[in-house]
């Protein structure tokens, strides 16, 4: 750590200018807008009306808002669960096995990062909607509806946040190498025992980190969900869609309150992540 401390100790005018630049940039782009949201969340509705925390809570207790947050939480929970299981599986497949098409799979996993979520939503509609979708008709005849229902929302959310888990685990798997796993198998452990006792403990912080990140991403997902969901009150209206609907319907205070809750959740996620990262760095 000697080199970083020497860098820190160099305090020339350039350091101050750069510091000021970075702080200013962050303030304009992030801090000030977020401050506005927070301030308006707790501002009185009209002149003379009651503001503050009580009014904020009251707005959140509206049944449609409660429904929206419950739906968002359900989607995020299932999406994260699915992504954790498949993310660990895909990571193991990508790192530990050689097979034709491995590179293509690796690129495909990254795709949701680069493709706009709106496109993801549209693609899901095209594939699964009961009218025109490829699988839609078959699924409909089996009595399964994906588009416009909660499973569809979960799918859209999972699609968008998949790479976050995989990209956290892959580098760690590559770094720990295969020797310990081979050692375990030469000591008599079968595949599952090796995974549970050796591989999983080695990648557990990467998994937790990936879960937190994809949780944060899932809570805030808008584009893909917006296309897949009917988006009406009590019918597929997630927290993010609620914010948009209320904002455009001149019910701004409710929109601000919901937005503030989402911000709070993200900040919480970041705090958790930085707490995890610290003990890891000290190793």
């Amino acid at each position, binding site marked *: 750590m000697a080199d970083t401390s020497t860098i820190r100790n160099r305090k020339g005018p350039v350091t101050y200018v750069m510091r000021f630049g970075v702080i200013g940039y962050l303030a304009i782009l992030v801090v000030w807008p977020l401050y506005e949201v927070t301030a308006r969340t707790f501002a009185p509705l009209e002149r003379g009306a009651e503001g503050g925390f009580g009014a904020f809570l009251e707005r959140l207790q509206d049944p449609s808002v409660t429904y929206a947050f419950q739906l968002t939480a359900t989607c995020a929970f299932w999406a994260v669960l699915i992504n954790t299981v498949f993310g660990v599986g895909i990571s193991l497949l990508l790192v530990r096995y050689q097979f034709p098409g491995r590179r293509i799979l690796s690129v495909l996993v990254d795709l949701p990062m680069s493709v706009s979520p709106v496109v993801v939503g549209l693609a899901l509609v095209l594939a699964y909607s009961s009218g025109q979708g490829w699988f839609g008709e078959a699924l409909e005849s089996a009595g399964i509806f994906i588009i416009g229902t909660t499973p569809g929302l979960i799918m859209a959310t999972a699609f968008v946040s998949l790479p976050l888990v995989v990209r956290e685990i892959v580098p760690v798997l590559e770094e720990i190498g295969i020797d*310990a796993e*081979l*050692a*375990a198998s*030469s*000591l*008599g452990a079968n595949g599952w*025992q090796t995974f549970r006792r050796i591989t999983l403990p080695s990648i557990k912080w990467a998994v937790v980190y990936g879960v937190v990140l994809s949780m944060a991403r899932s809570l805030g997902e808008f584009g893909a969900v917006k296309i897949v969901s009917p988006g009406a009150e009590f019918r597929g209206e997630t927290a993010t869609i609620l914010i948009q609907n209320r904002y455009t319907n001149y019910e701004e205070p409710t929109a601000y309150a919901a937005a503030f809750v989402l911000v709070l959740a993200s900040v919480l996620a970041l705090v958790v992540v930085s707490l995890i990262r610290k003990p890891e760095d000290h190793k």
Partner: protein
Amino acid sequence: MSIEVSGINKKYGDFVALEDINVSLPTGQLTALLGPSGGGKSTLLRIIAGLDTADSGSVEIEGVNATKLPPQKRNVGFVFQHYAVFKHMTVAKNVAFGLEIRKRPKAEVKAKVAELLELVHLSQFAHRLPSQLSGGQRRRLALARALAVEPSVLLLDEPFGALDAKVRKELRDWLRRLHDEVHVTTVFVTHDQEEAMEVADEIVVINNGRIEQIGTPDQLYDEPANDFVMGFLGDVTRLGNVRLRPHDIELALSPAVTPGTPPAFAGVIERTLRLGFELRLTVDVEGQGETTQVVLSRTHARALDLGVGTKVWLRPATGAISVPVLGVASA
């Protein structure tokens, strides 16, 4: 026979790692696979352990055909070149791993772990994590972990590599003693001929994916099968039409011929190098293309008062081991 390897072939793409390898290793023997890096010895060891698969050929362990068995069913202890200790487990947990997998009763596991830690002198470190151990200690931990499952064969990949010279020496003596105590059939891979000669009962010399020679250390040293084995097991130099060890050359200051000895080669000392107790001379022998290396003790050299430019006569010592130079008509 504890390990019977027959007709093993292994290719990585175009590269032939092993070609028609046949070895049988008797029970209880300590064997070294010796050869230069990239010669295929580690690959052979991994194939015996089941960590790698051969393209063709078979491996038999304790009379059971293990060719198709996965590593966990071979009952083989493997010590990896880079330890491969389980970083998230304490020393004791590492050693207990194989026993816990086998669902042995807790009391038995505890007793066995204590016994093994005692054996590898790590008892006081039982509750430490591997990251708090030195390289040599980690190596011993890996060994204890492999021994815990009472393997029918113990395989060690470069067990003394990447350690400083003193620790290597200690570990070497210790492994030899351990083997005499535990008596498990042991195979280790090394590229250091001194290590192999000192520790092993038998040495298998592997080069370019082929076995060059199998024999006891003395056999290999005294009757090398070919140029390569001779060169690999020690320094070799040329004198006239033969290759021999530099310390097997007698040096004299006059051509005085004793009856019954071969004629001496005249030469001039080109360079001298002092290395501890010995003196290495480079001699330009008349009528010979390459120079000859001679090793003398310092005391001997001082008595003869040797220096650069001194004219000397060289002849193979009586009883010197030599092999003819291949492909050279005459010097």
